[in-house]
């Protein structure tokens, strides 16, 4: 890369259940994001007029999240009038896509300092609210064999031979790691409590994690996609996988990512911008890659994306210290580890979305702070962040401490 894209800070809100009884339901999504912008400003005594653009990912950009919520958040945070904002949507990768977009603009010299991130209040704007031909148009559904993503996750488990016990055990470990990291204070550097305008705390720390879950509780949950599969979606998926006799429906709410509210932001800039503003770089964005794979199974993109990213960076699997794969479903993370030949010991070391939840448009940006904190805590160097994406896409971003 010509000129590096430095990460000057990465912060996030805690996550809470994305339903009406979730702690963050009372907070408008525009305020979730604006709160983080204000925090970024005060932490670094930032002259916001120096920020060129704010890019926020959001997957259901309608209703409370509609009409370019990024620009809304900039204004709600009372940032300088010169700061523009744009909302983007690359499904579950939106937050990381925002980071990559910002990095690319910095590297290209188009901008000097940017904020990238994402926001999703799933309690207010439920998943699917944005509609879309890929999932609602009968022509597309039949022609493209567009099945619900959980069917794809179950198909991955079936093909790879992950049993219900395997995916539940993975989920258990995610809960254990997340609870341990939170309770050890390892998230405290980046997690910014959500407060009301009077300064009262609404949510201090992640409250979605279920540390007291066990295999018995997990095993008692009903598969989420068996009924849907029997309507015909299984048949649709298998028409592309005739070597599979039938889909083993292993995924439940217990071993899939949680529906939560949350937001994240990352401050990214050139070396010069940091010097001008007296900012210390914490890391840099080394390389990023997008790819698409079979849209029917949908969730098999992260492994190939990570390989592409490594290739472009001229690195190998062994050069990476920590791996982070969004736990959309347990089988997605398991397939990722299998594709890359990596161990669970260095993957999702502090748990993932199964335990903490997956606020769709924000998750990708959250991974940046999670990994940066952990690289610093371990005094390690590189981390690869990946997510599976609707339509069969995969995204990977390689970050490095400086």
């Amino acid at each position: 890369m010509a000129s590096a894209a430095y990460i000057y800070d990465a912060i996030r809100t805690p996550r809470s259940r994305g339903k009406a009884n979730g702690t963050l339901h009372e907070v408008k999504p525009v305020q979730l994001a604006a709160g983080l912008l204000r925090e970024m400003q005060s932490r670094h005594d930032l002259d916001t007029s120096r920020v060129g653009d704010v890019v926020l990912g959001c997957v259901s950009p309608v209703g409370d999240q509609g009409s370019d919520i990024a620009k809304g958040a900039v204004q709600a945070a009372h940032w300088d009038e010169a700061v523009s904002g744009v909302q983007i949507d690359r499904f579950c990768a939106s937050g990381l896509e925002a980071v990559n977009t910002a990095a690319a603009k910095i590297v290209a010299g188009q901008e000097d300092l940017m904020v990238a991130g994402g926001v999703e209040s799933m309690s207010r704007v439920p998943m699917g609210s944005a509609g879309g031909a890929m999932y609602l148009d009968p022509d597309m559904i039949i022609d493209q064999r567009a099945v619900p993503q959980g069917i794809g996750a179950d198909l991955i488990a079936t093909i790879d031979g992950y049993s219900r016990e395997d995916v539940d055990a993975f989920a258990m470990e995610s809960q254990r790691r997340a609870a341990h990291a939170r309770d050890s204070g390892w998230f405290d550097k980046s997690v910014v409590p959500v407060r009301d305008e009077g300064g009262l705390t609404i949510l201090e720390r992640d409250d979605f994690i279920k540390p007291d879950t066990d295999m018995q509780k997990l095993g008692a949950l009903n598969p989420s996609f068996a009924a849907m599969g029997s309507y015909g979606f299984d048949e649709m998926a298998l028409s592309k996988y005739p070597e599979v006799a039938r889909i083993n429906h292993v995924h439940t709410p217990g071993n899939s990512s949680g529906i939560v509210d949350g937001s994240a932001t990352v401050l990214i800039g050139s070396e010069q911008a940091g010097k001008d503003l007296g900012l210390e770089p914490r890391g840099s964005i080394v390389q990023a890659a997008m790819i698409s794979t079979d849209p029917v199974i949908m969730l098999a993109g992260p492994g190939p994306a990570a390989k592409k990213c490594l290739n472009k960076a001229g690195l190998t699997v062994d050069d990476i210290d920590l791996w982070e794969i969004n736990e959309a479903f347990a089988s997605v993370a398991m397939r990722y580890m299998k594709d890359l030949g990596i161990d669970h010991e260095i993957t999702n070391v502090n748990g993932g979305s199964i335990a903490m939840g997956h606020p769709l448009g924000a998750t990708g940006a959250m991974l940046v702070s999670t990994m940066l904190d952990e690289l610093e805590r371990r005094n390690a160097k590189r981390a690869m962040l990946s997510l599976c994406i609707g339509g069969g896409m995969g995204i990977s971003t390689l970050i490095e401490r400086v």
Partner: protein
Amino acid sequence: MAFAYDKDASGIVTVTMDMDGPVNAMNNAFLPLFCDTMDRIEAEDGLTGVIWTSAKETFFAGGDLNMLKSVTPDGVEALFESVEGTKAVMRRMEKLPVPVVAAINGAALGGGYELCLACNYRIAADNPKSKIGLPEVTLGLLPGGGGTVRLTWLLGLEAAMPFLLEGHQVSPAKALTAGLVHEVVAPDQLLDRAKEYILSVQGDISAVTQPWDTTGYKIPGGPSASPKNAPRIAGAAAMLFKKTRGLLPGPARILDIMTEAAGRVDFDTAQRYESRRFASLAPMPSTKNMIETLFFGMNKVNGGASRPKGIPRSKVERLGILGAGMMGQGIAYSAAMAGVPVVLKDMTLEAAERGKAYTEKLLNKRVGKGRMTAEERDAVLALITPTDKAEDIKGCDLIIEAVFERIDVKNAVLAEHEDLLAEDGFWGSNTSTLPITRLAEGSSRPENFVGLHFFSPADKMPLLEIIAGDKTSDETLARAIDFARQIKKTPIIVGDKTGFYTSRTIGTKILEAVQLVAEGQDPVRVDNLSRLTGMPTGMLSLLDEVQLKLIHDIYTTQVGMGLVDPAEEATPEARNMIAELVTDHDRKGRATGKGFYDYTAEGKEIWPGLTVWRKEDAVLPDQDIQDRIIFRAVLETLRCLEEGVLRSVADGNVGSILGIGAPVHTGGYIQFVNTYGLGRFVERCEELTRRYGERFTPSEILMRHAAKQLEFH
């Protein structure tokens, strides 16, 4: 005059449609007539209302299928223009300032009902025989005369689905309940009531405004984007896929048009969209195939095209069935349902009664679902007399023997009962494999001996394969066809060669699938790929159902009888594999829980023992696997035609779809070639021959037709 036009003293115009031909139809003659009539109506002074009715027994029959099946890609534009032209006149009609009433005197199907939907008010004559509905989907079409959009607006997405996606046809009474018509009246009051209605709503603006032209009208159940409907549409798409394997564009387009119509676009835009998707659907192969076979072929076959000429119609007055097993009991049910008295005989009275209990079970289900009254059930049941005494059979004018599939057993039964037939009665042997001529040798009147091959389960399967032995008389064949129609089966007549038509042909595709596995292909993949061609089940699953042991035994018997020569077996590895599975591994079939699959309470899993045959490095392309299976069946069907086993193309097409699971979208195993393209088919056969063996060599009849580019009809 094709449309009689009458204006009465009260200002009501009654248009009585009486087009040339047996029915009123949306053919080339219709649009000018319709247009002229509307011109005249619009020019009327003192008009108070319009009534559309018919001088025929039916109200209106629908589209011109001959025209539709001949549409080429070049003809799409003309078809679109013509559909739009008709719709424009319909639009003028429903926008008249006076009430327009459809007086539905008889069946109103397809285009006929679409015409009714463009009327303000629909009154049907209470004739339980007349049907109302939009059956286009059953022929691979979509209602393109405005019906898809109008019915969606009228009933809402969910309620319209069974009528549009499944083509439900209903009686006037049910049409009333479903909201398809507004009123049902006695046939002789139809026109009076229509006039009375018109006069009663004079000045009422809502009576002359269609729902889709009413400000503030809401489609029942809400728009397609509503939180309830969005997942319902996705679910309907999945269900459609399950049913059609994604191979039928017609129903998929219907669902799509419904989705567009329900709130995505305005009424007129939706109408134009419907016309486009209808016009471009017409030249597609699956459309032509389904019209050709499911309409024209079916009419030919059921209309008795193969029935020997000049023989008076006959009716079976009393049917004897020997053997109350699976086949016998299913035949008994079909006959009794058609009102034929049945004597059902087995070795013991208990066995015969068990056979009758099968009918009772099926009827109780019908009663439970409200499709039959308890009295009707009892009346049907009373027609079946179970017995173990030969003399009870005496005097039956048809005896069907449905005993064990072995010549000596069948001969013994024949010897014991033949004399009991009524004087001019005939004998039917239900066999799927034994030669009729040979069986008839035991008969004292071989001219009255015929093969009646029912399919399992006989109460459900619509096909009857009638086998003519060397000595079977034309009169017997005619009577067999009449009997088939009497019990509402579709009959085809075939020659008495080994395996007749259906068993022989289904055998080739099953054996080809086994051959693929024997050569090392993944059995799960072979099974699924064969099902994905559009066949109802995969070929290995089907073989498990049919029972490997049965196939093995039949083959062994046929070899023993000298009917087949093992040296000429096209797929010897498949034969060997089946033999080995049955004899060495006790894999007899689904009935014993062990075939290609293991069957347990949890479902079925492929038998791990099959890995012995598997060659991981010899993976064939999907297309080759599918073509090998389907081409074998097509080639065998053409051979049957060439050898005279099949007497008509329609018999082959209809027989293959109804009897042996030919994919519906292909129009059957002969029509398949017509739309695949004769030349292209020959080329592909030659390619398969080079790669996989002589059994794919194009037959003479095929080469002849291909050389002349002469389709099979």
